[in-house]
């Protein structure tokens, strides 16, 4: 439906606010937007079922996060009630202190943390449902095809496991096995493990058969070594820049220049090396007008949120301690979150099947 690159930019636009803000209003909008994207575009995907698993995992995490924060943090001005204190300790060293004063602030903070966790999980779940991971593989630079292959296999791990789990459960159900408790997990896990191993071996064999790992570059000898050295130098430069950026706050501009130069060198090398690798494609993805629209909206959203992050951090933070107050809402940031639903707005209308 959309170009894979579009989805990658979309992922960036959705993930950035989920990572950097704890403001419940923005997170709620983001969650709703992601849910709308799934409920409309994702429903038709073959991977649609994996979403509910992510949702359940997210809810479980949320409950744990809220309970943990409420019971371990006794700080905040709005005291709700006091529980008996339970402290686990070895000698004088406390391991964990639970209970005590339960404050509204701790509950609110737990809730916002949970909201941000659930948002991140559901964004990835929706991305998994909407994007074919084989297509993600094709986005990697041509000379890095091996790395791209491995990354794509890693990304596919969870959805494949989910579908394998479903297959096994169905097969077990046909044989009259009913899942009732923890003990019934064993007949589920053993086949899962064996199918996983089997798949891995199969994958390795088919990769071997297709000549994976053999060189496709016409470049040999010295020039290749030079390129490799340059890449290593660029990566080292990036490392030095990152370190000095953090360690010498007074000379940040110098670190920034070094970092930019290293990135330039790296990209230049990648371009030159990729040009020498011959790759043919069987099916090319089309970049349509709607891709441009969604990408533009996503990039704009990244700019707005990133701009606030760099220039006016206060607009994004929400910190209930020491006394909780209603979160702020900046309509511009709220609008930026809506970039997540642009794929729904610009999607082609489905032709009604003649029935």
């Amino acid at each position: 439906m959309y170009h894979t690159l579009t989805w990658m930019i979309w992922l960036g636009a959705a993930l950035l606010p989920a990572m950097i803000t704890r403001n419940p209003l923005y997170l709620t909008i983001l969650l709703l937007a992601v849910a709308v994207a799934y409920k409309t575009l994702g429903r038709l995907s073959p991977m649609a079922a994996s979403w509910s698993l992510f949702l359940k995992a997210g809810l479980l995490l949320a409950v744990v996060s809220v309970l943990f924060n409420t019971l371990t943090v006794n700080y905040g001005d709005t005291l709700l009630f006091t529980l008996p204190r339970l402290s686990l300790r070895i000698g004088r060293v406390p391991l964990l202190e639970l209970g005590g004063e339960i404050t509204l602030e701790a509950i609110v903070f737990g809730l916002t943390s949970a909201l941000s966790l659930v948002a991140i999980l559901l964004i990835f779940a929706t991305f998994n449902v909407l994007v074919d991971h084989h297509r993600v593989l094709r986005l990697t630079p041509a000379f890095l095809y091996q790395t791209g292959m491995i990354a794509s296999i890693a990304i596919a791990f969870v959805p494949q496991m989910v579908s394998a789990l479903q297959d096994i459960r169905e097969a077990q159900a046909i044989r009259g096995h009913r899942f009732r408790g923890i003990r019934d997990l064993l007949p589920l896990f053993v086949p899962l493990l064996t199918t996983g191993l089997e798949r891995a071996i199969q994958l390795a064999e088919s990769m071997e058969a297709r000549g994976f790992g053999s060189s496709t570059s016409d470049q040999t000898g010295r020039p290749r070594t030079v390129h490799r050295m340059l890449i290593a130098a660029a990566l080292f430069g990036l490392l030095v820049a990152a370190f000095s950026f953090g360690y010498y706050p007074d000379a940040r501009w110098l670190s920034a220049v070094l970092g930019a130069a290293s990135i330039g060198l790296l990209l230049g090398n990648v371009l030159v090396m990729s040009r020498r690798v011959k790759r043919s494609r069987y099916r090319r993805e089309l970049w349509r007008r709607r891709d441009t629209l969604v990408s533009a909206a996503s990039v704009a959203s990244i700019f707005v949120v990133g701009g606030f992050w760099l220039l006016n951090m206060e607009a994004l933070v929400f910190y209930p301690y020491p006394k909780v107050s209603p979160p702020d809402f900046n309509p511009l940031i709220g609008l930026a979150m809506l970039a997540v639903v642009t794929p729904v707005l610009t999607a082609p209308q489905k032709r009604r099947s003649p029935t």
Partner: protein
Amino acid sequence: MPDLHKHTSGQTGHLVGIYMKRTAVGLLFIAGVLALLVASVDPAAQAMAQGSQKVGLVVKFGDGTVFTDCIDYTGPGMTGEDVLDGSGLSLVKDLSYGLGAAICKIQQDGCNYPQEHCFCQCEGAACEYWAYYHLDQQKGEWVYSGMGASWNTVQAGDVEGWAWGNGEVGGSDVEPPLATFEELCGPPTATPTRTPRPSPPVVEFTADPEDIVAGGCSTLRWMVDNGEVVALDGEGVRPDDARYVCPPETHTFELLVLNAAGEFDYEVTISVRQPTATPYPAATHASPPTPTSRATSPPRPPTGTPTAEQPEARTSPPSTPRPTVVAMLSTATPAEPEPQDAAIAQPTIPTTASEEAPDETVGLDGILLLLGVGAGTLGFGTVAFAATVILLLAIYLRARAQF
């Protein structure tokens, strides 16, 4: 077939029996482990029996000024964080990780979490933060704490130290100055062998005017001599300064001054009249007497009188630190002004009585706040948020029909 059925059900029963036994053993084991680990459930009750035991506190600020205090020991569960809380110093804490607090700022030194990160001045080579120490009373030296303040439990008679700077394990020059427990909290037998007491600060704290009409503004001025740390409503300020304030409703500004002699609290109330509530002549009539009666607290008498009477209020170590501020106030402020204040307030400002309420923390308060968060005060932000959510719903409904 029925035979088989019976057989299986019998077997299941047997299995269930084994299962239950194992569960019981497992539960017993877990209970045993828990019983071993749980050392104390609710130590607060035991705390009452401890009597008036104390913990010393030394805080060294970035400009070299030192604040010392003697905090009541509240019981076996008391942590370094509780000690710091008890000092009444204004703190900024980072509690994002759930396991205890990081101290980001004490009074004016440190980082304003969450606008900046908690250790914003410790980025690489130049690293300054609130280093936490315990006093090794036998060796007479500070020991850099191996644990955070929320996890470190203190005993009665301990001395805790905080210093702004690059603290390290094994000692560095940022350590707070050495002070023994006796110096901080006095000898346990209360023999009056104390060296000359440090003198309390000389403070002038005024508001001009003290009566304003809603929407109006007033100028707060303060001059502090011999004060080490000065805070206006919990925010660190310079010793001699003025501030232009426009409180929407009657507000009592609090000037907290700390020095070696202890903490001193000064108050000035700016009363705000609602223009509709009182007719014009009545207001002008009422205003002349108000300043005299409202200049209740210690700030007014400029230099001589407070120095003479305050030391008495300070030297007796406060029983519970935060309330002390209030207690000191009531001792410094004679009992009469309050009713007088109320009497004058009644005709002009009916809202004065509610001034005390915000300081209390009650469950109901929290529920009301929660409702406030939910319903919102229908400000611009709330409307914008609701509009965004409605827009999302509309998009969903339209798209659902389409796909």
